[in-house]
């Protein structure tokens, strides 16, 4: 990018260069056809963009549409490039930067949720403590025997991070996370 950063005073000044990387959440609506995920991921690896989180599933079966949610990190200029590059992919219908959109609505960020399954093994006091903390985090027990629990927890990424950190000394065995699902607040669709 041209380092000529001073504002130009033009009405068509698109993205102000701040050079500070930000996390943004993108929603990408695509035709659910073979190879479409590979196209999206290949774009990120081929052009050196970051993927912090990726979630994909078919959302409108009869229209064969899938929704891909990507959390990526970059400067505003790079984020704008990512959006345009994604839009070039033929089976991509729409790309919405949910973070930018939430700023337009005067909100700090879009609604973002993640689900995690957390396996904790142990006996005695640690086991009791794990259950008590899980309750505090509104995690539910979906599998258990006398030596382990599997907790299901939903929430913001930061909440899940925190839960996992707490479970670590209590016998954390393994974790599976879905990645971020996100929507903008309010009545409008993407």
């Amino acid at each position: 990018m041209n380092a000529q950063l001073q504002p130009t005073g033009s009405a068509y000044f698109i993205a102000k260069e701040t050079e500070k990387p930000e996390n943004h959440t993108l929603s990408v609506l695509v035709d659910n056809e073979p190879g479409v995920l590979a196209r999206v991921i290949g774009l990120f690896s081929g052009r050196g963009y970051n993927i912090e989180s990726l979630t994909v599933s078919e959302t409108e079966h009869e229209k064969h549409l899938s929704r891909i949610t990507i959390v990526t990190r970059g400067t505003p200029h790079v984020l704008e490039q990512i959006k345009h590059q994604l839009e070039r992919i033929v089976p991509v219908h729409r790309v919405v930067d949910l973070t930018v959109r939430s700023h337009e609505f005067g909100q700090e960020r879009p609604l973002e949720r993640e689900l995690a399954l957390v396996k904790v093994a142990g006996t005695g006091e640690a086991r009791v403590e794990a259950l008590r903390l899980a309750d505090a985090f509104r995690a539910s027990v979906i599998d258990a025997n006398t030596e382990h629990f599997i907790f299901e927890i939903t929430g913001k990424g930061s909440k899940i991070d925190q839960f996992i950190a707490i479970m670590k000394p209590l016998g954390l065995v393994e974790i599976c996370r879905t990645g971020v699902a996100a929507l903008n607040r309010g009545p409008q669709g993407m």
Partner: protein
Amino acid sequence: MSNGQSERREMTGAEMVVQALKDNGVKHVFGYPGGAVLPIYDEIFQQDEVEHILVRHEQGAGHAAEGYARSTGKAGVMLVTSGPGATNAVTPLQDALMDSIPLVCLTGQVPTSLIGSDAFQECDTVGITRPCTKHNWLVKDVNELAATIHEAFHVATTGRPGPVVVDIPKDVQFAKGFYVPPQMAPRTSYQPKVQGDLERIKAAVELMASAKKPIIYSGGGVINSGPEASHLLRELVDLTGFPITSTLMGLGAYPASGKNWLGMLGMHGTYEANMAMHDCDVMICIGARFDDRITGRLTAFSPNSKKIHIDIDPSSINKNVHTEVPIIGDVGRVLEDMVRLWRATAKTDKKALYPWWEQIAKWRARDSLAYKMNNDVIMPQYAIQRLYELTKGMDTYITTEVGQHQMWAAQHYHFEKPNRWMTSGGLGTMGYGLPAALGVQIAHPDALVVDIAGDASVQMTMQEMSAAVQHDAPIKIFILNNQYMGMVRQWQQLLHGNRLSHSYTEAMPDFVKLAEAYGGHGIRCEKPDELDDAIKEMISVRKPVLFDCRVATLANCFPMIPSGKAHNEMLLPDEATDEAVANAIDAKGRELV
């Protein structure tokens, strides 16, 4: 369309391929047969509407199709087999992607039941070609084959043009299904924006009208948009009186004889074009993409200008250079609006531009393309000048390979019309020019088609001489033979203390004998005073010609913006002493390509 009936007809997949080619107006296909495309070749054998041009290597088929596309404005079509056939197509696919050339590549694939089993001549064609195509398809159901091929042509030729691949397993070629003609609705996710935003075009016109030091910088997008866009560009230049320069890919959109023409810009562009880009106050970029070969050091690129950027691809806007007035749309449509609005609202104060033109005249007087003439040795620039003088009145198409000769051709051959100049710009593919010339000649059988070549590049695809002889394509391969990979050597002189690691070709073939071995015609010329007669002989021969033009071995290509430098830090030919060359690039520029 030769077949307009809408009723579905039953046929085999292979028949569908040929029918779909006919229905998309295809007259020529460049290809090479193999196991996985035999059913399609069998269909090609049994008809004569679509002519197949047999090449000697799939890369040749791709570049020939690119040359065909670039010179006609239509899609080029190539047909290759699975596995190595497909992998050999990768270079031309990427080449077409970077230069926005509509190229439809049909590949055979092993039968669907064997996909994934490491079968003979199997490769993951859609996987390998995904990043080097605009889009690609693997067709597993014969009933989707016709619609897929039609869509492939649509995607390749609309929006920002580019290469596409349709991978067709052998069992699908044999299977019977229903053919649909190309009348389906385009998919909703692919709707390129062609009409520019009128408010922004108005803003652009206002900005242009206020300019004191404007410059128009046009590119390959003008040529891709079609002849009308070139026409409108000329009209805009006439109306505004602005100076115009062009990228390598855009040569010919504005005539080199036009009075506002500054010559090509960029790394080996003219002094006046680059200085004007650096000092301008308003830059109008039309169908170009601020490539690193154009901008030089980005932080010093045209620091005091406001920029208008017309491009059909939104991702080109603000990619490398910030733009004040981006206009997304087809160059032709946008120029139509722009010319109309200019006529209606703006008036050029040609007097206000007078100091700017005066400044440009001073830069021009620097004569940056000058070289020292030699009476004993042919200077490469002189060879191209003579070629130009002796062919300019004819119906001529020029292709090139990649290297010094390519830059000299761009500097010293002057183009008056679009679609006359075929070169590998973005990817820089050595070996492009000879097969591209074959493709151009197939499209224009009576034209004079010259590949201005280097001795190193031309050996990369020399085998297509055999294809040219077979198809009576009298292409002229004008080789500037200095026995070096000249541009590699030039960079070794600039960057690596003149240590010429492997850039000298110690065993050069005898190009005259080689031409004769292929059944073509060979000419050798070593003296400047024999050059004109030799070129005339080349033009008059109705056969493929290899012209071995022995040129000064150590000539270098100037002017030059060394890597990491700005437009106003050019190395001019008369300043390019050995010392200046050795110190032209600093440590930071060294890392750049």
